[in-house]
């Protein structure tokens, strides 16, 4: 008896479980799809709300219940760009500080990463950990004296100061990240180049740079994100000549009156560039954020 059922079972088995597995797979897929989208939209909701509110007339932005249908207007964006405090100079300051500091970071980090990976200095490990330890020192602890230093060196409220400080802020991250890309240069390629009699500069230009340059782009993008979003130093060390985008946002909240739509438009203008950069850099975001630890 037992022998019979044992031989019977496999003959029938393939069809029934197969179908139920298919069904399970499809319901699973549907379930995860629904859950995934609900969670994704929930996370995105405040940003979506910011976008929507930015296109509302001010009177529709502060209502109860909140309005989901309204006739969209660009009025608040127009105010952001050509109101009493136009955003132009702030964007300009932010762009100069961001691009300037990122270029400085790359100029400093590229040779440093080389000296910590391809032709390493003796104590490369100590240097690496020195760089990362500066990330742990809270800059806020020195903000008062930093203010005094800036005052005495006539760098207060100057974009140069922001460029210098943002470069120092992003340099450790860039060195760790670029180094992780340099370690990927195959040793055989380096040796082959050396056997060919390639000098150091040809080695860098022809062997290392082609491998590393995509990494440089993602490193730059991550530096851009952090520099563009920085508020603390800008708030303490700039007033008008170098005031950046986050400070424009603060100025868009008035002491009185309706401001929610205006604020949303300003916040949208401030955030969209970095959101786009982040979406483009998505693939390498995790590598940069983990300082090159995760590929």
């Amino acid at each position, binding site marked *: 008896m037992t022998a019979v059922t044992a031989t019977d079972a496999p003959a029938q088995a393939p069809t029934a479980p197969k179908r139920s597995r298919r069904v399970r797979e499809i319901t699973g897929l549907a379930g995860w799809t629904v859950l995934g989208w609900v969670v*994704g939209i929930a996370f995105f909701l405040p940003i979506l709300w910011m976008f929507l509110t930015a296109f509302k007339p001010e009177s529709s932005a502060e209502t109860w219940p909140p309005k989901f249908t309204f006739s969209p207007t660009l009025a608040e964006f127009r105010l952001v760009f050509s109101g009493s405090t136009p955003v132009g100079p702030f964007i300009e300051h932010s762009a100069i500080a961001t691009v300037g500091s990122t270029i400085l970071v790359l100029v400093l980090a590229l*040779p440093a990463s080389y000296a910590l990976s391809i032709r390493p200095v003796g104590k490369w490990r100590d240097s690496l950990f020195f760089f990362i330890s500066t990330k742990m020192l*809270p800059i806020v*602890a020195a903000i008062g004296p930093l*203010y*005094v230093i800036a005052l005495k060196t006539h760098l207060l409220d100057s974009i140069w100061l922001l460029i210098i400080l943002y470069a120092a802020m992003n340099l450790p991250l860039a060195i760790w990240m670029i180094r992780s890309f340099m370690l990927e240069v195959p040793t055989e390629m380096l040796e082959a180049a050396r056997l060919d009699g390639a000098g150091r500069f040809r080695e860098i230009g022809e062997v290392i740079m082609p491998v590393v340059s995509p990494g440089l782009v993602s490193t730059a993008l991550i530096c851009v994100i952090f520099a563009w979003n920085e508020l603390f130093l800008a708030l303490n060390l700039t007033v008008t000549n170098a005031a950046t985008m986050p400070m424009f946002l603060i100025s868009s909240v008035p002491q009185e009156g309706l401001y*929610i739509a205006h604020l949303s438009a300003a916040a949208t203008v401030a955030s969209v560039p970095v959101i786009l950069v982040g979406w483009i850099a998505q693939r390498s*975001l995790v590598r940069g954020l983990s300082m090159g630890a995760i590929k």
Partner: protein
Amino acid sequence: MAVLEDVTSPPAAGLRPRGVSGREKWQRRLPLLPALIYTIVVTQVPFLVTLYYSFQNYFWNEPGGATWAGISNYKEVFTDPNFRSALWRSVTITALAVIFAMAIGIALAVLLDKKFIGRGIVRTLIITPFLVMPAAAALIWAGPMLDPNFGLLNYLLEPFGVNHVAWLTTHAYGSIIVVMVWQWTPFMTLIVLAGLQGQAQDSLEAARMDGANAWAIFRELTLPHLRPYIELGVLLGSIYLVNVFDQVRLMTNGGPGTSTTTLPFYIYQKVNYAFDIGGSAAAGVVTVVLTIIVASFALRLFARVFQFEEAQ
């Protein structure tokens, strides 16, 4: 495939600086020097100046320079109950934000590791909060999201009996944490997701064949595998979040009272409202000393996470 890379592993054997001449040594050092000197000057010098001013009486709005103050600034810092409470608040707010962000981050990573329709888009939606300018996020949460009269959150929670709650006055501390968690969960998600995608599938398959249930597999196989990734996320998240300032400044301004005054905001107030460079410097020095103590542990963890020991 994502792997936790052996970042601090020594470069290939043939390139190691063994028995190199003095001239060669300097040739190797040369490319490193600009970055090294730059970092020392820009990041270390301000702390030396801070040390100097911590022993000075100096108010930047008053004429006349700094005068020697002895240890009076330190006395003030240590006897100021606001300093201690700000310090403690910084520790708890960072810990809570990191723990919640990591817990939710793990859940989201598990979700994003499943196959479903539109996964790429959902992943993009989930990482976006991290990209939003923190100042913008803080102001959007404070106004359109959390306002007691017209805020979206009160509207969404109305069916659950929530009635026009003034979140930033009644739950200021929690509101700040919510925004921190919202912004940093994507960071944790990405790091844990990289860990999940680097997990070998065959051992999971084998466990499934043995009839282990999903939770047991997650607990016994996946979590231990994720451990270095979780440690890395917690460590890096703490480094950034302990300096949280934007949300405090823009959502609650440290209040009500001092209920959301964290250490960075405390020092900011000393400089900007009390004009007290000496006092802020002393508070800064104490902060740095505490940070160095914590950071020395953190660096050790860092070294381990990056498999530093093994590389030696």
